[in-house]
């Protein structure tokens, strides 16, 4: 096939040209710089930066908290999506619109607001303090912030899947003798499973790179509550461009691996079905 199929619509050259130019300068060029900077280090320096105790601590926090946040959002996001699609209650439409708030709200604002609410004398923090639960300036706070900002992804991924489950399938299952729990377990859940996985993936990806909403509530103690993006910023401030780039590459690599794994999982799930068909 030639480069493109003929069409009577004009503007191909202009639009493709501009688009490619824009993407090259804004995306490709900077990324090239990143890759080059990160790989131009000495191998030993690279390993030293990337596997330093501080770096490892930050990976544990960033990826660990992101996984936890994504899992929490999987559960609560599902409950919220279920509630919004299945039950009617006063203010449902308002709640539905509010779900997108973390998406539209600047991360810095979320950051300082959450910190204030969960600080020791904050609205919620003051009730958790006597129970010995410290949220602000701990990994718990980091997880909480990450849960907030990735929540819309989980909910919005599951909602359309739930809406798609045909009522007739549930009705058929009921006439065949299934109780509500069985209907949920055997009919609804398998159908929305791909959407749940997608929601989890999106939430995780969003959480891993998060900066603004986390640095206020985390306290930024090295090896305890320091996230990887912050570590990158610190390297930059010390003009250690290469170190920063190295860490950046590691972040991208790990995210890439995780996303790939989940995509493979989804594809495997589909392939299983295909195999059964043969």
């Amino acid at each position: 096939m030639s480069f493109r199929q003929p069409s009577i619509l004009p503007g191909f050259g202009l639009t493709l040209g501009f688009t490619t130019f824009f993407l090259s300068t804004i995306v490709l060029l900077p990324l090239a710089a990143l890759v080059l900077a990160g790989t131009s280090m000495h191998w030993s320096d690279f390993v030293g930066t990337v596997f330093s105790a501080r770096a490892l601590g930050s990976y544990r926090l960033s990826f660990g908290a992101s996984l936890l946040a994504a899992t929490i959002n999987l559960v609560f996001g599902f409950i919220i999506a279920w509630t919004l699609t299945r039950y009617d209650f006063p203010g449902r439409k308002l709640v539905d619109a509010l779900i997108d708030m973390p998406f539209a709200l600047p991360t810095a604002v979320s950051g300082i607001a959450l910190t204030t609410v969960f600080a020791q004398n904050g609205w919620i923090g003051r009730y958790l303090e006597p129970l010995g639960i410290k949220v602000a300036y701990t990994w718990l706070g980091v997880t909480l912030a990450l849960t907030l900002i990735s929540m819309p992804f989980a909910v919005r991924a599951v909602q359309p899947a739930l809406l798609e489950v045909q009522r007739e399938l549930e009705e058929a299952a009921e006439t065949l003798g299934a109780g509500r729990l069985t209907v949920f377990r055997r009919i609804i859940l398998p159908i929305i499973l791909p959407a749940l996985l997608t929601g989890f993936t999106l939430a995780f990806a969003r959480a891993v790179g998060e900066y603004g909403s986390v640095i206020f509530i985390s306290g930024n103690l090295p090896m305890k509550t320091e996230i990887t993006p912050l570590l990158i910023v610190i390297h930059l401030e010390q003009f250690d461009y290469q170190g920063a780039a190295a860490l950046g590459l590691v972040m991208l690599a790990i995210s890439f691996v995780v996303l790939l794994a989940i995509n493979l999982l989804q594809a495997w799930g589909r392939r299983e079905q295909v195999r059964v068909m043969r």
Partner: protein
Amino acid sequence: MAAAQASAFGTEAGRPGEHTWVHALVRWGCIATSLTFLLAVLLAPLATVFVMALSRGLAAYWHAFQDPDTLAAIRLTLITAAVVVPVNTIFGLSAAWAIAKFEFRGKSVLITLIDLPLAISPVISGMVFVLLFGLHGWFGLWLQAHNISIIFALPGIMLATMFVTFPYVARELIPLMQQLGNDEEEAAITLGAGGWMTFFRVTLPKVRWGLVYGMVLCNARAMGEFGAVSVVSGHIRGLTNTMPLHIEILYNEYNFVGAFAVASLLTLLAVLTLIVKTLVERTGYRRR
């Protein structure tokens, strides 16, 4: 049938034998859990912004906006948005036209590149520009020789913001234009209209709501971008601080009223964005 078309709500009510206490418990349990979760994670922080901003009274609130550094930050944010949003809109329209209207090899590469900034941490997004234009970056020496500052100055902030927000308009328009198809444009061409006329009179009206939504979202993210801008800005008060960065500075100085006052502006912007979203959806435009 009218009866059989009842919304999904009908699933949980109106059937014989379905009004047991278990069902009621599950129903109210779900609603309660959802609302509590949202209250803690969403509403409490939102409310806090305004409560804290007004905690010393209305006078202190207004006073916060008279600080010259704050005003400078607001000005900088507005200027950045005023440049970034139009550029990204043009890019979005251009990319959507190329991708939705034509079939060519390498389309999926293009789409992946467009989605890329959304998958990258904002810090990395900012860092790549430092690597290019910073002192030790690729063009660092050349820029210094010519006395041009990009990093730690307005151009750097704009570039970083542009990098992070350019996908939004494109991602709204591409599926929309793909869905709407080419028929009308092709009809216009056969009737003798030129490319620009077709674009302005046929395509643009069709996609106007998606465009509005994309632009509004792009604007909200541009004004609120923190991570990427933080890396390239240099944090020079009064010169290279956008509103989000200024919030950070005020907060770290324990000037809570100031920090939350500026935050309240951005929150109002977010609320406005959501209102626009709701209105756009009312017109029948549904996101994919």
